[in-house]
């Protein structure tokens, strides 16, 4: 009874205190959260926040602390998830920000339309995709998500609602703006017509880094999608070996039917020792041999190609309850890739899922992740020595003129961030203007000192 009355005191009606974590499960926060079901409730919720601050927590698929606000408030937008309008002639979709890529796939892919840019999970929301200006396996050509947004409705920290178009400076602050400019309510997104629900995927084995980069170079100029899985533990002559995958839309085949994949769950956390450097090395070696030497071609449904990890719900439990670090960086010079891979191989840390792909476009946002070069994504089970390795990787990225992706980060330093994101001063100016009291707040914003002029 004492427990219940205590609870009642701290959570006014409509607010609930809960524990949240980033997808990597390392960053954690207790927040007082509201979960509006109607847009009309938002202004009241937003303006109720004082100095403890408030941030939107939507799909919960950012790896680090961008949607966490320890000790403060949060707005859960998952129930603002309606499709509002779609014009098949232009491909323009209007939707509430809590709609997930999964909803688009289920409702609009059967009609021949797909999000032009999608992250590696379909459970991210469209609002989150704007806030992190996400990219996919077609960044080289299609750029980031924000490039395809025609307008968005933003509720400013003051509670004022504004429709923003790309010409508006506040639009460029909101795209990639990590939720710090307010709450995104709705957006207009131009979808891409596709000939079928399938892609033709070509896979080939590459034996070392030079061969890897050569294969990516070929694919970037001819394939709609390209991505490479890299064995981040191979050393010496095998450094940079992996599998390069490229895919193009294909016409429908007569009689080809599509069945929804059966969802699988991971019901418990795997014990932390399951993914250790030895088991990961063994897995990586096996995985590399999965594709025959001469390569192979197959047809895959879009979801299986775009969202392979979604086949196992809660795949983040693979890493045990202590969670894992993600690290993704853009490297403008190919030489930097070898340096980073050598740093990983030299440390005892093992990366289970490592991805190398090309990027070709700048994002539209002031803090967008993007540019021309390669992007390397690594993940490391939490453990001793990882912090040191991530610090070394940050310095290497800085030395080579690169950039760390904030949607996956939980470790970057404020100084490193400021050096990697040269348009930060413009972003700060806009924040100072629209949110002088600092109502929007996230643990990431505090860690990276996004508000404070250095």
């Amino acid at each position: 009874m004492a427990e219940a009355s205590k609870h009642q005191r701290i959570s006014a009606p409509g607010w609930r205190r809960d524990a949240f974590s980033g997808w990597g499960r390392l960053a954690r926060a207790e927040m007082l959260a509201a979960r509006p079901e109607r847009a009309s409730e938002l202004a009241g919720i937003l303006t109720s926040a004082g100095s403890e601050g408030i941030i939107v927590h939507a799909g919960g698929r950012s790896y680090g602390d961008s949607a966490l606000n320890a000790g403060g408030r949060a707005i859960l937008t998952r129930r603002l998830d309606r499709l509002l309008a779609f014009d098949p002639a232009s491909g323009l979709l209007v939707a509430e920000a809590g709609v997930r890529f999964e909803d688009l796939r289920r409702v609009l892919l059967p009609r021949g339309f797909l999000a032009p840019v999608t992250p590696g999970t379909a459970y991210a929301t469209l609002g989150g995709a704007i806030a992190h200006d996400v990219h996919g396996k077609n960044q080289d050509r299609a750029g980031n998500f924000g490039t395809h947004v025609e307008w968005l409705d933003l509720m400013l920290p003051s509670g004022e609602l504004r429709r923003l178009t790309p010409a508006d400076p506040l639009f460029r602050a909101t795209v990639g703006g990590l939720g710090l400019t307010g709450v995104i309510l709705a957006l207009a997104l131009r979808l891409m017509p596709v000939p079928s629900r399938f892609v033709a995927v070509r896979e080939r084995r590459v034996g070392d880094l030079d061969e890897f980069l050569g294969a990516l170079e070929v694919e970037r100029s001819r394939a709609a999608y390209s991505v490479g899985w890299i064995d981040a533990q191979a050393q010496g002559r095998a450094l940079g070996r992996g599998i390069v995958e490229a895919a193009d839309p294909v016409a429908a085949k007569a009689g080809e039917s599509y069945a929804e994949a059966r969802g699988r769950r991971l019901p418990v956390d795997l014990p932390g020792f399951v993914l250790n450097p030895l088991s990961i090395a063994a897995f990586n070696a096996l995985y590399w041999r999965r594709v025959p030497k001469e390569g192979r071609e197959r047809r895959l449904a879009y979801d299986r190609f775009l969202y392979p990890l979604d086949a196992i719900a809660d795949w983040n439990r693979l890493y045990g309850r202590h969670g894992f670090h993600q690290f993704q960086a853009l490297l403008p010079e190919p030489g930097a890739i070898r340096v980073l891979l050598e740093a990983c191989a030299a440390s005892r840390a093992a990366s289970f899922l490592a991805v190398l792909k090309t990027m070709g476009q700048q994002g539209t946002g002031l803090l967008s992740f993007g540019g021309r070069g390669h992007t390397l994504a690594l993940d490391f089970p939490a453990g001793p020595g990882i912090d040191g390795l991530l610090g070394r990787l940050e310095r290497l990225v800085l030395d080579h003129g690169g950039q760390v992706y904030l949607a996956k980060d939980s470790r970057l330093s404020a100084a490193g961030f400021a050096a990697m994101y040269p348009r930060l001063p413009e972003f700060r100016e806009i924040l100072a203007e629209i949110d002088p009291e600092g109502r929007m707040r996230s643990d990431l914003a505090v860690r990276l000192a996004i508000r404070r002029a250095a």
Partner: protein
Amino acid sequence: MADPPLWLVLGASSSVARAFTRLVAAEGGEVILAGRDLADLEASAADARLRGAAAEVRPFDAGDPASHALFVAALPARPLNILLAFGLMHPQAAIDSSPELAEQVIRVNYQGAVSILARLEPLLEAAGQGAVVVLSSVAGDRGRPSNFVYGSAKAGLNTYLQGLRARLARHGVSVTTVKAGFMDTAMSYGLPGMFLVASPEAAAQVCLLAARRKRNVLYFPFFWWLIMAIIKAIPEGVFKRLRL
């Protein structure tokens, strides 16, 4: 399909009603979304259309029984199914300090429901088919000090539905009382003491299935049947000393 495909959803902004609308839409059905927040309902109607339903929005205020006759008169002359999903719950503590809130709770949950169902009854009888599903609550099974105004309104509604069910059964219309336990809705969000909370999507599925199977009374989630059987079995002399 035996079911007429048109569903009138009363209180269509609630999360269970929204999930229910999506289920009907996925089957290519037709919905009339009725409620007070028209802007919100228009968004739900647009969503339903994109998912395959024919959808329209009508203003409806459960707490204003004087408006109900006109609302019913304007309905299309076609066989209907009905989901009654509106409800109002004020915390008992709030009612204790302002008793006029008790009247609101009774007006919406009991008077409003009876008023609209009584006016829909002739349509259902004339159609000679259809299903009525009413979202009620386990709170109606026994009056607890922590929630007895709401509980008594739902108890009244449950009793009304027993009579309505018997009468409409002769005309081939089913009436299902869904006694809901804890559901993860805006009404319950942030309340203390919630456990084993069910999703609105699961509730919507149970409502649709119950209509198909012409169920009479069911508990949702099902284990509330057992919980309420125990709570109802406690002798009043003991019950009044419990802090429930």
